[in-house]
């Protein structure tokens, strides 16, 4: 795809223009750490932001959303409101890649998820490359970063002379076209710096963790492994890893009645919860914590790859950093990768 560039001082202009035409969501600092939210003032955006503590998946899969209402004397009404087009600016390549995995899972016919599609179809995803990956990051393992991911429409990379912009999809090209006066083609000097940057960052990260991904498929056979038993002792069964993960997409539904209608909501669920697989009969195929923990890793590293041809982990490092008990997926990768 074509490489463009935008000058540093024009970024704010671009953001302001974007926010006038679209709902602009970008990370900015609130209470000490960065979070995605509607960016009202482009000055709040800081190019040197660290990745957001919580993943941006909630803009496409809210923690809880209405599926339908049913009125006793009228029938069903589906709650598919037309969304205004959303621009997610400043997403990191890992999180953008997570969106492409989600697309793979949720937009593949015949099992299309209408609620997800409704939010996703008009969204424009603009990533900003990581040039200083955090210590928890291991996106190099799954090739989901740090410079380029797999789900972006546009990829911005910060160099000393401005931003190198790569249009990755037709949607991306359309955005460049829309704000043509701000962008120009990237010159050779800039591209050289860009390529050098890619090499440097990848080298730095590669030295941290090297994994032979083809071997990961075999984890499933190791389910009884002591490793999981040990970590299960530690696990406190909060659902933080799943909630923080940019591509944990398991959901559950809840039905109840309100003033004049029955409603169905759906929202995030987590396979770490002891209730996740518990059936009404009392049967539970994953009784122990170790079973559930193993399942989580197997699903991400072996089952999703087998079914959707992509990994269920993008190496963002959120679960590693946030787990109160210090359970670390990198240990799994080291052990079996």
């Amino acid at each position, binding site marked *: 795809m074509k490489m463009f560039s935008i000058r540093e001082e024009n970024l704010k202009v671009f953001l302001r223009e974007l926010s006038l035409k679209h709902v602009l969501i970008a990370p900015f600092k609130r209470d000490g750490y960065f979070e995605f939210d509607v960016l009202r003032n482009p000055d709040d955006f800081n190019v040197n932001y660290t990745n957001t503590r919580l993943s941006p998946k909630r803009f496409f899969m809210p923690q809880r959303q209405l599926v339908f209402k049913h009125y*006793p*004397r009228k029938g069903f009404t589906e709650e598919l409101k037309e969304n205004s087009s959303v621009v997610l600016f400043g997403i990191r390549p890992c999180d953008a890649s997570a969106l492409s995995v989600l697309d793979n899972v949720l937009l593949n016919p015949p099992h299309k998820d209408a609620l997800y599609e409704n939010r996703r179809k008009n969204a424009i995803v603009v990533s900003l490359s990581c040039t200083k990956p955090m210590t928890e990051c291991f996106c190099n393992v799954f090739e989901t970063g740090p410079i380029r991911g797999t789900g972006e429409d546009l990829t911005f990379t910060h160099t000393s002379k401005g931003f190198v912009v790569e249009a990755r999809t037709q949607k991306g090209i359309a955005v460049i076209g829309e704000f043509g006066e701000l962008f120009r083609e990237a010159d050779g000097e800039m591209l050289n710096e860009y390529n050098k940057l890619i090499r440097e960052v990848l080298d730095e990260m590669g030295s941290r963790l090297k994994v032979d991904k083809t071997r990961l498929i075999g984890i499933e056979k190791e389910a009884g492994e002591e490793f999981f038993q040990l970590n299960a002792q530690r696990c406190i069964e909060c659902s933080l890893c799943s909630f923080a993960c940019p591509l944990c997409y398991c959901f559950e539904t809840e039905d109840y*009645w*309100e*003033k*004049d*209608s*029955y409603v169905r909501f759906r929202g995030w669920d987590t396979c770490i919860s002891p209730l996740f697989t518990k059936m009404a009969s009392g049967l539970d195929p994953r009784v122990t914590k170790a079973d559930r923990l193993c399942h989580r890793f197997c699903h991400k590293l072996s089952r999703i790859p087998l079914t959707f041809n992509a990994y269920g982990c993008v190496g963002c490092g959120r679960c590693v950093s946030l787990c109160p008990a210090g359970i670390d997926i990198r240990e799994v990768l080291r052990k079996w990768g």
Partner: protein
Amino acid sequence: MRRTTVLLCTCGSTLLDKIDFDKVRNELSKKPLVSRVEVVDGLCKSSVVKNLSLKPSERIIVAACSSRFLEAVFKSLLSISNVEFVNIREQCAWACENKEDASLKTIRLLSGSINKVVRIGLPKSHEDLKIVREALVIGGGIAGVRCALDIADAGYRVYLVEKEPSLGGVMAQLDKTFPTLDCSICIEGPLLSETGRNKNIVIIPNSEVVSVRGMVGDFRVLVRVNPAYVDPEKCNGCGECANVCPVYQPNKYDVNLKPVKAIYCPFAQAVPLKYVINKDYCIECGLCMNACTRAAINLEDKPKMLELNVGAIVVAVGSDLFDPRLKPEYHYGEYDNVITNMEFERIICASGPTGGVLLRRDGKPAKRVAFIQCVGSRESGQGIEECSYYCCAASMKEARLILEHDREAKVFIFYNELRAFGKGWEDLLYRRCLEDGIVFIRSRPSEIKRSLNGNLIIVYEDTLTGKRGELEVDIVVLALGFKPSEKLAKLAAALGISVDDKGFIEEAHAKVKPLETRVRGIYVAGTCHGPRDIVESAVEGSAAAALVISLFRGESIKLPETAKILENKCTGCGRCILMCQYGAIIRDGEKIRVLESICNGCGACVSSCPQEAVVLGDWGIEQLAPQISGMLGD
């Protein structure tokens, strides 16, 4: 699916201009789960309710007047448990300024109740308790005997447990009763022998209650029967054994004033009239065994444990009296001629140690006698703070007995307030005392001194005149107040009932449940729950019997709703125990248990449990939270 029906009552069309029933009906019909909304006139008429053809499985919301009026109608007509009552008359129609407000409030209240009623499970199979129609009366004094006789006469079996060898209690020890000066044992004696003859009464003398399990209708009571060393089945009370017995002991019946043999029968009118051995004095010489023609004596007798299964218990164990040694200024136990009123009763009694002649300990006749009232009552610190009820009348009676024996005698009564409130007390006691020249001195004497000739000198200040004085007398009688014993507290603990701050047994309610205790099925009579006289004790014995009989007359007991612990949830943290003011929740090993017979259903435990492992009827978060949501959801 179970149907949910809303019944709106127009209260004889009187509410039509207060509430817009059409609007209410329309709004409610829109709601999920509501299958039927009916506007009817007069739900208090059973014909109206019958016409609605309600089914037992239906959930019903009754919007009408106060549930106090309607609950009975619905309970008697239908076996529907899921009925919710909403008061739209007193709380909506009559309390709101206008029709619009009242209608809105009606809709809101009903929305809440609809949300609540669907959260109530299927009717619980209410297992009624079967009643064991036998009663236990603890204590064979006048209250216990009266009670046992009344229950027995109604046709129910009664176990009468008495710690002494004979029934009778304090009344049997008294010489005369006030105000009529009737002979005490002459009145009580026939009652005692009637009790002994009654086929429905099982007298268990020499015994005490050790523990109680179970609840109303089905108590299991463990009784320890202390050894009498004489088989009551064989003993015919001939007294041959006592004749040969070489050892004397003080007789408790005579307040230790008169000796009796170590094998003895406490008094002539004793019921049962059987001999017993006091092992503290018996030297095991075996003479009695030889004398007994029926081989009734067994010196190796051991205590026996007896388990009784009864449906109700009456506690009538009486109370102790204040220990006058705690008042050193009166020198009781030190000065021979300072005696208690119980000792006086035995001395003045014809069957007593002196054959009814009032003598000083040195054998001289007593000519001047003083009574000191309120010893151990009506003062803080020692004794009890309240009036002991009986003693003014008792001392006046005793004063008159002295004069009956000896017209020349001089009697003084040191009183604080003279309380002659009972039937006949004023005319038959007080007036006659005045006429007889008994001197009343309003004072609480500060000290009793002893002069060289052995006479006693009472130091006092007359609080009417303010003058200090000293009075020389032969004998001082201390009118002792009641003082509940520690044994009573132990018994209460075994029974699971509570005692008040003075140590008397506490009533379930001082005004409206005066004879019931906090444990359903356990009643109280006589002086063990406060100072009383003979009349009141007998009244209470009969009244407690009536309560027992009415309990036994019913087929089964409908227990009020009590808290229940969901054992699969309960972690045993004990916060409910901490909260229960009735002491109805206990730790039973690893588990927590609700004592249903004590639980009052206040629900303090329900709201103290962090995970709703205690439930009480339909008043949990599970029902109330949706109710609130429904009310506020507009």
